[in-house]
């Protein structure tokens, strides 16, 4: 293991330990409720940018994957009373399949066509779920949580920890991809697809791989949301907000490095959570809009890019 790998895994271990200790010590529930949402967006943004960031294929269908994750859980709970780990695994499997199908169908298309196709896919899936009476259809469905298992004494605390695990998983995968030949291949095809092909990069296969991994992770992230809300309805599960927010988070953070989406998600999700409980009105939406515009105009490489530029300048100053 290289030094940076050791540092990364040590950091991940410390993070998980801290999350775990928090679930055991903190009695106030709010940090877990709000923290869950923030963690969920981190995982979504990281998963999204595997395809959207590294490969440059903008997936508008985050909400489709997220929603399918939610409804995979709803179905499993209703049909078999399946436990949480199984829900997440099933979600991931569904997501991988969906990613594969989406990829096969659309990845031959150039950039923006792919994006449009993902919008279409979202609507098709949402309509299908809306018409599926077994999982509640348009009317939505209320779900009973099972008893919480030790060592947690509260379900939301457990979900918080589970979501933290998913974040670590997503980041580890994203980091691995970036540092491996896969990441280099994706970066090459994002820069220039034909040049990449002519340099030996199997672009279609790599894109499919990215699509499958990204899809599996996004669905897995959605799966525990059914238990978090104890309620699911198509309009909320397939909300456009998920698609736009993950896109925004990745871009605000920067897509050049695996840490970009994390930073972006922390900044934007925390801001949104804070605004929800402070200003709390349409200004909230306005802030998202203004942040998006300011960042893509003023900091095209995101916060990561800003930091790099600052460092670069300082380095030059010293030299």
């Amino acid at each position, binding site marked *: 293991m290289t030094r940076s790998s050791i540092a990364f895994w040590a950091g991940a271990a410390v993070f998980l330990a801290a999350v775990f200790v928090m679930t055991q010590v903190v009695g106030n529930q709010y940090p877990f409720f709000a923290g869950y949402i923030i963690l969920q967006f981190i995982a979504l943004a990281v998963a999204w940018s595997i395809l959207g960031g590294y490969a*440059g294929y903008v997936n508008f269908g985050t909400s489709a994957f997220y929603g399918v994750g939610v409804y995979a859980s709803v179905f499993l709970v209703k049909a078999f009373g399946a436990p949480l780990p199984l829900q997440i695994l099933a979600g991931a499997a569904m997501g991988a399949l969906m990613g594969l199908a989406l990829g096969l169908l659309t990845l031959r298309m150039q950039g*923006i066509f792919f994006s449009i*196709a993902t919008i*279409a896919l979202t609507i*098709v899936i949402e309509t299908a779920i809306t*018409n599926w009476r077994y999982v509640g259809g348009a009317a939505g469905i209320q779900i009973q949580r099972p008893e919480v298992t030790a060592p947690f004494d509260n379900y939301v605390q457990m979900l918080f920890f589970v979501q933290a695990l998913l974040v670590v998983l997503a980041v580890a995968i994203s980091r691995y991809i970036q540092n491996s030949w896969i990441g280099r291949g994706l970066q090459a095809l994002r820069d220039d697809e034909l040049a990449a092909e002519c340099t030996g990069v199997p672009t279609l296969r790599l894109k499919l791989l990215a699509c499958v991994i990204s899809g599996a992770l996004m669905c897995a992230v959605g799966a525990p949301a059914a238990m978090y809300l104890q309620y699911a309805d198509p309009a909320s599960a397939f909300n*456009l907000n998920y698609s736009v927010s993950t896109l925004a988070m990745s871009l605000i953070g920067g897509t050049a490095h695996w840490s970009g989406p994390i930073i972006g998600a922390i900044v934007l999700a925390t801001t949104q959570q804070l605004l929800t409980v402070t200003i709390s009105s349409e200004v909230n939406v306005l802030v998202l809009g203004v942040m*998006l515009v300011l*960042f*893509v105009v003023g900091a095209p490489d995101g916060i990561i890019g800003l930091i790099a530029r600052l460092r670069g300048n300082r380095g030059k100053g010293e030299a």
Partner: protein
Amino acid sequence: MFSLDLLLDAVVIGVLLGCFYGAVSLGLSVSFGLLDVPHVAHPAFLVLASYAVYFLNEHYAVDPLLAGLLITPVFFVFGLAAYRLYYETFEKRGSDAAVRGIAFFFGIAFIIEVLIILQFGVDQRSVTADYIGKALRLGDFRIPYRLLVAFGVATALTVLLTLYLSRTFMGRAIQAVAQDQEALRLMGTNPVKIKQWAFGIATAVLGISGALLIIVAPVDPTLDRAYIGRTFCVVVMAGLGSMGGTLVAAIILGVAESIVLTMFGASWAPAISFAMLLGILAVRPQGLFGRRS
């Protein structure tokens, strides 16, 4: 339930509805189809135009279509400015313009949404005119005048835009810029100027499209979200940049939707049209009337 009468009726209504979809997509067909600008704020501009029309209709009793015409110069200038901003910040910098452009236009769309809410509130608004709420009777058939207006406006806009693009110098330059920017640069014309002009035209068209939107159905500030999918689908299905193709694709979409609404499970209507788009993209990525090989 099946009857020939109903089917015929569904087709007629579908064609008219499709014309409406076409009319609200034409601007996008220029801005996205010809100029490759990922203009996801197109529907937000559209709703903004509807509110402008509403304002004129409500306070000065201006006919909605006339109001739509009146705001086109304003929207033209607005479009010029929007493209300039987009160009300076994205296109000029080259790669990745599409991804950031999408985020940028989403941001713009949200800002417009909120500004409308702050100015007009969240209630839905509609306009009044003689042709709203009445229908043309043809024997057993009844066709709402609203939709006939949509039909007329859509055809007129399509014909005008097609003529403009093929007959005028500027129009041909716009077509050329869509094909090959380099060639145009060699000819000594500045492609940026031409694209800016074209984006202005695309936005100006939205003035009339916006009027149509509020004539056909009431609008509310967040209506734009429902039209992102629809308008992009029409443009992509048509194949980028063909005005006539846009209208035809929109009509196909309208007819499909109308038939499903009438004959089969209505709640499947959106899935049908978008599945159709997915199918077309899978088989024929350049769209039905695509310019790209």
